[in-house]
């Protein structure tokens, strides 16, 4: 045996090379596009002692104290620039220049409900992540929450909430914090949810970059979703789905609903940003509970044209 001769190795199969190449290219396209849309403008260290909100040509930069984490995160529509000026420090948070909403809809079409209740603060987002990461999902630890890269963090309305131990669905809407984040090494992404009352976090979906970019296949990721059926306290039946999905890049709006052979529930507008979304679908009714129900997604482009309808 001559160890100076490299051992023979099998080549990576052509189909795998193609698969990896496509995934990599998609990732590169998307991350470059993000930079184009929201190129950070870093403010040099300033010795000023008063707070200022600096407006630069490319956008608005809000100077923040190092410990301040009350500004909304991952929200291009946030108006953080108009917040009360803060004590400046060496850190700066970029706020993208666009104040336009993510989609051009100002109000959902009739028959739909919007779950999104606006951006959460960074402090809340990291708290939710810390609670999620205690379950050890993909090896993430609570401390990883402090360095995770947050895509977005939003408050969503839970149309119904299952009450464990009492075995019924509560139809009083509740707020829930949903966070989409990447680990600092960009190897693991997670979508976590936390009950607005501070209940422990829930790992909705986790995966690696491969699964994160799977939206090109337009197939919703349902591994982390919860699909439940039960009754309310007053005896009505409830179908409830909540989960994270990825959508094809050209999709600007996603709506979700329940369908069954005899009918369908109303459409719910999901939250979608950087083609990663979170949505819920709920249907409540009286009489016999529908059999063979399923979740249906429909995707629209930025001009409002229907791109596709997908059964989850």
């Amino acid at each position: 045996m001559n160890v100076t001769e490299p051992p023979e190795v099998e080549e990576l199969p052509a189909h795998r090379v193609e698969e990896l190449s496509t995934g990599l290219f998609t990732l590169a396209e998307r991350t470059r596009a993000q930079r184009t849309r929201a190129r950070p403008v870093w403010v040099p260290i300033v010795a000023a002692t008063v707070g200022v909100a600096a407006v630069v040509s490319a956008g608005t930069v809000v100077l923040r104290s190092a410990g301040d984490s009350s500004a909304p995160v991952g929200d291009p529509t946030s108006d953080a620039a108009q917040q009360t000026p803060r004590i400046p420090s060496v850190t700066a948070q970029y706020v993208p220049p666009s104040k336009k909403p993510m989609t051009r809809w100002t109000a959902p079409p009739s028959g739909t409900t919007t779950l999104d209740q606006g951006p959460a603060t960074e402090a809340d987002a990291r708290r939710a992540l810390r609670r999620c990461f205690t379950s050890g999902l993909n090896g993430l630890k609570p401390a990883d929450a402090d360095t995770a890269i947050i895509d977005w963090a939003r408050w969503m309305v839970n149309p119904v909430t299952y009450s464990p131990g009492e075995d019924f669905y509560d139809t009083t809407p509740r707020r829930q914090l949903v966070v989409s984040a990447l680990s600092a090494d960009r190897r693991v992404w997670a979508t976590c949810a936390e009950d607005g009352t501070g209940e422990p976090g829930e790992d909705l979906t986790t995966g690696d970059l491969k699964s994160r970019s799977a939206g090109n296949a337009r197939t919703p990721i349902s591994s982390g979703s919860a699909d439940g059926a039960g009754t309310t306290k007053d005896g009505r039946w409830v179908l409830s789905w909540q989960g994270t999905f990825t959508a094809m890049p050209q999709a600007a709006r996603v709506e979700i609903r329940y369908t069954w052979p005899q009918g369908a529930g109303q459409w719910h507008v999901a939250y979608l940003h950087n083609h990663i979304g979170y949505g819920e679908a709920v249907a409540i009714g009286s009489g016999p509970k529908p059999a063979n129900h399923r979740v249906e997604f429909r995707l629209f482009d930025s001009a409002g044209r229907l791109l596709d309808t997908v059964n989850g």
Partner: protein
Amino acid sequence: MAIEVDTDEVLWERLRRQEPEALRELFGRYVQVVHAFAARRSGSYALADEVVQATFVSAWFRFVRGDPGPLEQATARSWLLGIASNEIRNLSRARRRLTRLLSRQPVPVPMGDHADAVVARVDSERQIAEVRAALRRLPRHERETVELVYWAELTVAEAAAMLGVAEGTVKARLFRARQRLRPTFQSEPAEYEEQS
């Protein structure tokens, strides 16, 4: 008609401008190099597959996060293998985590009967393991040097840059490695000739 292909230096400059197509070209050029390097070093094709992915993702983000400056070597090979080395270390350490992660992935699409390919890979992994067992007689720094120069075919200069040592140190390590491994050789190895 000859097809003009960008040199690594040109490709590197395009990467500095964050051209995704340049990343695709870099991938096409070095995917098998990185894969072979990872398979030989780890002795596992499964891990090598992950390393390939992680290496090129990491490479891309080095350009996205900041400008790494001009290409320091004639090719990007040693730079990529440096990243791959780190990824192998990280992924090996996180093997348990990976196992959990993979268990969460969707069931792969059936690719037909590939039993022969699996057997071939298992055989290959066994052979790599045998060679690596012999290499384990070397101190780690010599082992790494042998892997980079003899197995990954880096030049002495590239290996020196990657390891952060002088070229003379690389040559000395290779010499000592050959001395230590002499009883292992069935035949006397040829003297190392520096690649240009």
